[in-house]
């Protein structure tokens, strides 16, 4: 059932376009890199701030930067779904891909947890712990994302 769905997506017009178009894959891959730098840039700088860097910046002031982060996330969501179409039946079973998606979801939830922790005025140690966990999760997302190019399906 899952395999049928993956093959349907992979062999559909999006997958065919991604594999056969001269500029399709490079353009989507490039969008993914820009989105990544934007989302991770905002996530990393926020986590650094919560961990004690540039203490003079109000953490609430990062709310404005989150708008930029969301734009990056949206670019990556769309480009990621398109990239997935190229080899859906392979990526889905790749442990690096599974870990990447898990790390991104966890990293996204942790960003919310970090901000909630700041708003709730939890202890500094708790806030720093959540921020470190959040940053680690996004780093795992980057590392496994790169590994996908080198690791075959499990």
């Amino acid at each position, binding site marked *: 059932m899952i395999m049928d769905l993956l093959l349907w997506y992979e062999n559909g017009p999006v997958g065919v376009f991604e594999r056969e178009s001269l500029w399709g894959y490079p353009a989507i891959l490039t969008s993914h*890199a820009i989105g990544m*730098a934007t989302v*991770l*840039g905002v996530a*990393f700088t926020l986590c650094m701030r919560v961990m004690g860097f540039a203490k*003079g910046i109000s953490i609430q002031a990062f709310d404005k*930067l989150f708008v*930029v982060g969301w734009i990056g996330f949206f670019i990556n969501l769309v480009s990621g779904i398109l990239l997935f179409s190229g080899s859906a039946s392979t990526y889905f079973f790749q442990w690096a891909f599974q870990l990447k998606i898990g790390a991104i979801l966890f990293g996204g939830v942790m960003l919310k947890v970090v901000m909630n922790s700041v708003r709730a005025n939890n202890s500094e140690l708790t806030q720093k712990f959540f921020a470190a966990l959040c940053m680690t999760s996004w780093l795992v997302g*980057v590392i496994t994302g*790169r590994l996908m190019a080198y690791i075959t399906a499990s």
Partner: protein
Amino acid sequence: MTMQDVADFFTSSIVHKWIIEQFWIFPLCETLHFIGLSFMFGSLLVIDCRVLGLAKFISMKEAMKFIPVAIIAFSVNLITGYFFMTSDPNNYIYNYGFQWKMVMIVIAGINALWFWLGEHKQLLTLADGEEAPFRAKVIALVSILVWITVIILGRMIPYTDS
């Protein structure tokens, strides 16, 4: 000195041999390059968005603390980038994507120098919420656009063989 002499110089280096023989160096450098890129772009976003007025309530003085982070991240990318080029100099040196990427990095460097020498001191005196001068905003906008172009060109290198 021709382009080929430069390529030969890198090919004959011990680093070239090392990268070719150790399969894990290239993926490791790629990962570090992406992490460096994210830290650098994030730091520039904090500074540039503050200067542009998109995040006016970030203290300018504090935003400037991200400059060293951007420099360290750029250094990581410079070193890993050197490793990439040394791994296959004949491909990189003649590659249009790579050549234009280097040009854009030089432009980004000149823009950063302009920012540091011409605007930095004045910007430090800005109060929270105060608008930056127009010239500083132009520099910030150029910074973001040039670095996005650098990312695009970097990603296009495998597809822009000469």
